[in-house]
């Protein structure tokens, strides 16, 4: 991990994607860009913010870019729709049918990599994320990105409110994604308070 930066107040963000580089800058200032992330280089960056509103604004700005996949702490899937329906929407809505007939196999593999057995994934498919614990919801959100990885995966405060002992599955998921897609970029957005508890550690690859 690299590029740990802190900000005092920055509620507005200017996020651009040009020539395979995503640039994140404070909207009001004319200073040099805050962070530049080159796609396809497998870079892992972190941005530590002091305000939740600032993080919300940044996540919303990044989510507008088609190259970005946003993975928040709650997984990002609609809470009241069954998991199977949400994943079908996430993976097949107005997409090229490039997944073809193998997408069931890739989905099964993705569930396995996230630590779900076949029986667990069948049972989870019929449930709503609303009824599931937060870590499981996050892992289900990761399943989607393991099948269709974005060019930049943004982890939005995934460690917020987690005790260090509870963060194991999240770290494992991040390591799995990086191991599967070593050339896909990743950005972690954390709040300063959570960052102190989940100090940057070397990525562990299973």
């Amino acid at each position, binding site marked *: 991990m690299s590029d740990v930066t802190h900000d005092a107040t920055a509620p507005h963000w200017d996020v651009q994607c040009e020539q395979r580089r995503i640039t994140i800058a404070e909207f009001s200032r004319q200073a040099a860009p805050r962070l530049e992330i080159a796609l396809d280089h497998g870079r892992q960056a972190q941005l530590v913010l002091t305000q939740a509103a600032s993080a919300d604004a940044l996540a919303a700005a990044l989510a507008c870019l*088609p190259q970005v996949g946003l993975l928040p702490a709650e997984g990002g899937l*609609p*809470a*009241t729709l069954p998991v199977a329906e949400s994943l*079908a929407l996430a993976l097949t*809505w107005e997409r090229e049918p490039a997944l073809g007939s193998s997408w069931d196999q890739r989905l099964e593999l993705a569930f396995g990599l996230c630590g779900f057995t076949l029986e667990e994934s069948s049972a989870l498919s019929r449930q709503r994320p609303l009824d599931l614990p937060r870590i499981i919801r996050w892992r289900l959100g990761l399943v989607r990105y393991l099948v269709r990885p974005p060019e930049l995966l943004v982890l939005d405060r995934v460690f917020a409110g987690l005790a260090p002992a509870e963060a194991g599955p999240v770290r494992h998921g991040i390591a799995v994604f990086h191991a599967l897609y070593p050339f896909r970029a990743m950005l972690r957005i954390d709040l300063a308070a959570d960052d102190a508890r989940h100090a940057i550690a070397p990525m562990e690859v299973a």
Partner: protein
Amino acid sequence: MSSAPSATTRLTGYTLLAWAAARRWRSARQPLVHHAFLHHAHDAGITALPVTGLLAALLGATLVTQLTALAGTDSDLMQRLVFLGLFFELAPLITALIVVSRSSAAITSELAVMRLHDDFTALRQLRVPLVDYLFLPRILALAVVLPVLTLIFQVIAVGSGWLAVALLQNLSLNEVAGRFLDLADPLLMLASLGKSALTGALIGLIACYHGRAAVASAEAIAKATTQSIGNGLVAVFVIDGMSALLIWFAQ
């Protein structure tokens, strides 16, 4: 506590939503939207069959028996009252009321709960347009289901009426049915189904609007559901009145 939107705001909202849904009608061909349409058609239509059938049988037998007692069996007036009153007027109206009380409340509360849990934002982040996936299938489902339910209501109501008359008056069923079919007007039959389709679409539109517009709070869900049912009922009677006037002037 938030106040209810004004009538102008609501009418504007209904119009804008109708326009947005009409522009996106081609999305109905997408497999996921088609699947959602079938799901909502099942919820609004198939599950309403038992209550529709029961009400139709009871109403048909009661009404036709009463009319026969008033006007006699050998009376064109009675047959026309059965056709215009029961077949063309009451069947679409009562079916619409069944759908408003069941489906309108269900759609509004479902969408309001989705808003409460911020599912609209999640769907936008999945790059799924809300109109395509949430509103269009529901509106189309009610527009298709209501005429079908109306037709079933008409058949069962008239059939049970014939049966009641045949049993009470000791007449043959063929005799009772024959006089009715001689006076039935196919164009009015089609008009009743067209009226039902329009009513169904409007009920779906109103329910989707109030579910979408509900403030993200538990209290707002009940309020939105109440408004949806109330406005749906008004819409049903407005269309009913307008279609009656239209038939009157056409004749």
